[in-house]
């Protein structure tokens, strides 16, 4: 007489074998999901010369760029909690961004044409990021105090530093171009060596301390 447990494991084994035989099912049909407007945030992993990046975009533009030292799941969980959990892996929406990054890292273009969605930056932080992106082009640098001045708050160099540290879209909003007035490259989310690497790539004149 077959016991329930034996019968159960016979069913479980059979189901596993059948699923294996059926092969891995296709991933979510992102094209269809996007056509139906179901994807609030699409993301893709991008291998850059400065390491692996995670690029995430809403329908308005890049909303988050994370360096490899931040676990992907943490980044995605944060986006789910702050913007929307309808987050789907999709190369489609980020195809243009990836091509622009390819050109940028090859030294053949800037990132100015990329659309960004700065909804994660509020108040003064947002003003600083907008000012930086609009006024400090590839090849240039600016000091924290200088950027504070441009953003209309000359004494807010420290607040500018905070805004840079919280920049949701590094590279595209070029916080790597903001350097200490004392010299050197200063701190950077992905690490100072990456900041130096980016500035070298952009051919900026570096005053090393």
């Amino acid at each position, binding site marked *: 007489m077959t016991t329930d447990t034996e019968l159960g494991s016979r069913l479980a084994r*059979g189901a596993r074998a059948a699923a294996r035989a059926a092969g891995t099912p296709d991933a979510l049909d992102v094209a269809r999901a996007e056509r139906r407007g179901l994807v609030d945030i699409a993301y893709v992993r991008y291998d850059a010369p400065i390491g692996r990046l995670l690029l995430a975009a809403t329908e308005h533009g890049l909303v988050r760029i994370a360096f490899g030292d931040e676990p992907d799941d943490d980044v995605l969980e944060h986006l*789910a909690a702050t913007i929307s959990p309808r987050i789907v892996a999709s190369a489609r929406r980020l195809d243009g961004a990836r091509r622009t990054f390819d050109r940028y890292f090859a030294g053949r273009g800037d990132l100015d044409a990329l659309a960004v969605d700065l909804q994660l930056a509020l108040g003064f932080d947002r003003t600083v990021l907008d000012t930086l992106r609009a006024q400090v082009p590839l090849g240039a640098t600016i000091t924290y105090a200088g950027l504070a001045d441009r953003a209309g708050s000359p004494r807010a160099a420290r607040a500018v530093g905070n805004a840079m540290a919280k920049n949701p879209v590094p590279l595209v909003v070029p916080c790597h171009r903001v350097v200490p007035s004392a010299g050197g490259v200063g701190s950077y989310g992905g690490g100072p060596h990456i900041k130096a690497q980016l500035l070298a790539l952009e051919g900026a004149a570096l005053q090393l301390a």
Partner: protein
Amino acid sequence: MHPPPFELLLGAHRARLHRYLVVLVGPTDAADCLQEASLSALAAYPPADTDHLSAWLFTIAHRKGLDVHRRRARQRRLVATAAHDGHATLPDVELWDAVARLPDKQRAAVTLRYAADLPYAEIATVLDVSEDAARQNVRAGLRGLRRAITDTDALTKEPSR
């Protein structure tokens, strides 16, 4: 609890959802069912109750599976053939034949329990019954299966005498 990113939620349950659907509707329709279920889930995500997301996903997949069954029943009535039922491709055919012949609730309960590894509480949610009823359906299903395979065993042993 914050609902997790959809991609991570689906990733965590995808293999089990697929296994359940393969057993329920066969390998070909399972892929389509999983796709439809995933899109429906994304469209409705996040549900109001975010504490039972696994059961919620299986409920959606289960309904897609039932749609396939209904469609097949209609087709069968039209062409009068017992066409491509998925279980025919499974190993251990006599057992899965017996599964296919179980009453709907028992078949669903048994496959949710053993193909999808769902706890009774989640089976209850998917089938919209009490946890006790979920247990009873699994037990009754197993009893039915045992009876069916014992009969076939007896039948196949008969001629060798």
